[in-house]
């Protein structure tokens, strides 16, 4: 165990005792919190500090358990509540976990065979993973999915951010009307969008082309970008712009150095939504695209209906693992940044 500077709350509570008894000097860190001078500390002082911090951390945990004044029904309710939440989380995750063993199925069906339930190694096989990696159809699908989602996200993020910046300006005319129009792709039922695009894009020659699918997906993704970025901008302090302008920055510098860094989390969040929307989209692609634009969902749909191919389960397992990996990495990165900045998660 090492002493972390983010335990500053604990250090603050120990300060009197530490300074009086052990003469540990406290210094201010760059955020103005007083923490022990960990650089110039003797080993005896360090040992004392560690022990106290460890105890304090344990108490912290205890403090977050039930306060003693709760009555029995309230305690029962508290635990029932946690059981309900646990059940809901289980409900959310279990169907995804079921897929993983099924993807190792030996027969081309979506059921657990007797052999699998008995954990007989004959009942398991890697054939679907092999199929996925060697099949031309799937390779093309992965390539198309990435290509289409990437460009659709770029278009929708760029246009959406620009529009949100415009919508957040103080004198935007017809704001509500335009906002409704821009959000409409999210509101209109997907089958209607798909059918309409099928007819319209056929007329203008975009049916069965990569461009057509990219435009369709970009249109479906922009509402997410618009919503997240406008939400971020509502909390934006306009005084920052005025301050930067008063300090002599031209508008472009203000934009790139002040506004962009602050709205980046919102933009990235919106871009992620748009990316997932395009990557996972199946109805529009089936109508507007053709075989050459087959995406991963297209292959999966065909795998459920026309083929009975558990290859889609192996594709799904790989996607789940990639998503878990990505989300965990993001979380670890975020924690690392926080630790470096010395901010305790509140």
């Amino acid at each position, binding site marked *: 165990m090492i002493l972390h500077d983010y335990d500053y709350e604990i250090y603050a509570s120990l300060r009197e005792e530490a300074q009086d008894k052990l003469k540990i000097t406290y210094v201010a860190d760059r955020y103005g919190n007083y923490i022990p001078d960990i650089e110039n500390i003797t080993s005896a002082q360090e040992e004392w500090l560690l022990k106290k911090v460890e105890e304090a951390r344990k108490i912290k945990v205890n403090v977050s358990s039930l306060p003693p004044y709760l009555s029995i029904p309230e305690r029962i309710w508290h635990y029932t509540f946690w059981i309900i939440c646990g059940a809901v989380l289980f409900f959310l995750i279990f169907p995804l976990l079921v897929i993983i063993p099924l993807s190792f199925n030996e027969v081309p069906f979506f059921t657990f065979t007797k052999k699998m339930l008995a954990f007989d190694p004959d009942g398991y096989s890697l054939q679907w993973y092999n199929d996925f990696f060697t099949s031309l159809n799937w390779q093309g699908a992965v390539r198309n999915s990435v290509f289409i989602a990437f460009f659709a996200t770029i278009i929708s993020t760029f246009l959406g951010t620009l529009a949100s910046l415009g919508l957040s300006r103080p004198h935007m005319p017809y704001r509500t009307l335009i906002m409704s129009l821009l959000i409409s792709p999210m*509101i209109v*039922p997907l089958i209607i969008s798909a059918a309409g695009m099928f007819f319209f894009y056929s007329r203008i020659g975009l049916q069965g082309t990569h461009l057509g699918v990219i435009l369709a997906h970009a249109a479906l993704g922009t509402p997410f970008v618009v919503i997240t970025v406008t939400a971020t901008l509502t909390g934006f302090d306009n005084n920052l712009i005025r301050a930067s302008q008063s300090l002599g920055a031209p508008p472009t510098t203000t934009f790139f150095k002040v506004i962009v860094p602050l709205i980046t989390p919102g933009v990235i969040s919106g871009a992620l939504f748009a990316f997932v929307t395009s990557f996972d989209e199946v109805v529009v692609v089936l109508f507007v695209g053709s075989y050459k634009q087959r995406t991963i969902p297209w292959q999966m749909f065909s795998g459920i209906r026309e083929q009975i191919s558990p290859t889609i389960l192996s594709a799904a397992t790989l996607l789940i693992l990639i998503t878990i990996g990505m989300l965990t990495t993001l979380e670890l990165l975020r924690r690392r940044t926080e630790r470096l900045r010395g901010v305790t998660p509140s």
Partner: protein
Amino acid sequence: MQKNQENIPLVTADGTPLKISLARAQRRSKIIAFLMVFPLLLFITIAFIGPIADMLMLSVENSIVKKILPKSAEALQKWDEYSGQLPDEEVFAAIVEEIKQAKASKQHTKIGSRFNYESSGFSSLFRKTGRKVKKIKSPPFKDGLIKADKRWGEIYTWQVIKQNSSNYTDGYYLAALDFKREFSSGNIKSLESKDSIYLKLFFRTILLSTLITFLTFVIGFPLSYMLSTVSTRISNILIIFVLLPFWTSLLVRTTSWIALLQQEGVINDFLLLVGFINEDGRLAMIHNATGTVVAMTHILLPFMVLPLFSVMKTIPKSYVRAAISLGAHPWKAFWKIYFPNTGPGIGAGSILVFILAIGYYITPALVGGSSGTFISNRIAYHISSSLNWGLGSAIGVILLGIVLLFFVLYHRIVGINNMKLG
């Protein structure tokens, strides 16, 4: 004193009156704002609104008749369809010539299919006539045509053609609402209940979507509450549990529900093992409305949890503590203080889930059987299989109208500008 103040106009540094200068600056600001929004607006109009408008046109368009049978349609206008008499030779002559032309340009079956949507039998009528029409070379065309197919000698045939020959038709909307036009009298009748499909489907779609919205709310609310009250570190880990299904493909989730809910599936096997049911009593949870509801609740749950969570995070915990310290029972504090504050989140989540549920087509197709399909399945069927694009569009427009209605309601109650997605 006041008079003097009124008479002195305020001016800016360069001498222009303040009002004008202000108006000019505001106009500039408005123009810049609009220019920033314009690219996206243009894009959405072309890529999205255009298609929807196209569909609207398709639902009433009937120009195919005037295109393929122009002279016959015109000649028919002079005929009284309720007179009990067949049209005269001029009409027959026109139609024979036009069917010959249609056969040459391979359009005759299309027009036959179009009329077939209104009254069955026309497909074969036009196809057969197309084969035999080259033998009819000289007048009287009436006898020649009736010899080719005796249905041309029935008044009903001509009534159908006449009443469906204008450029626009309401036939698709009538069919979408389970009405039928009786061509022999020109009246609109509603279909008997055993033949009416669409109103039932609309009703079922709305009912099941409402049920799904309610279920996601009941299940999602406790989860969002827990996520917003625990420490950020734990909530960030648990949010992964919510985001993971959200980012997993819809098809994959639906497939796993198929594996779970089948009669020989995981859940039934488990219940058998535990002894809740016996072998004959396996629950039928799939290929019916239950399957649709369960699968869609699972799929749409993140859409309820995320807006609720983002709103709940902004409610200060001190409100509830203050209420309790003033003597309120914790439950009362919750209902009177906390719950109303989550209103915008509930509204956003509910409308999102409801609208998504109404428009879903893949999941009901795979797990709904026949009692769990939605109106969107019918739209897809008409576009891909029956090729009655007019009817598919009409149903789509009605569905869109319903959705817009609910959306306007949402805007009145909650407001678009308050939408957040966490």
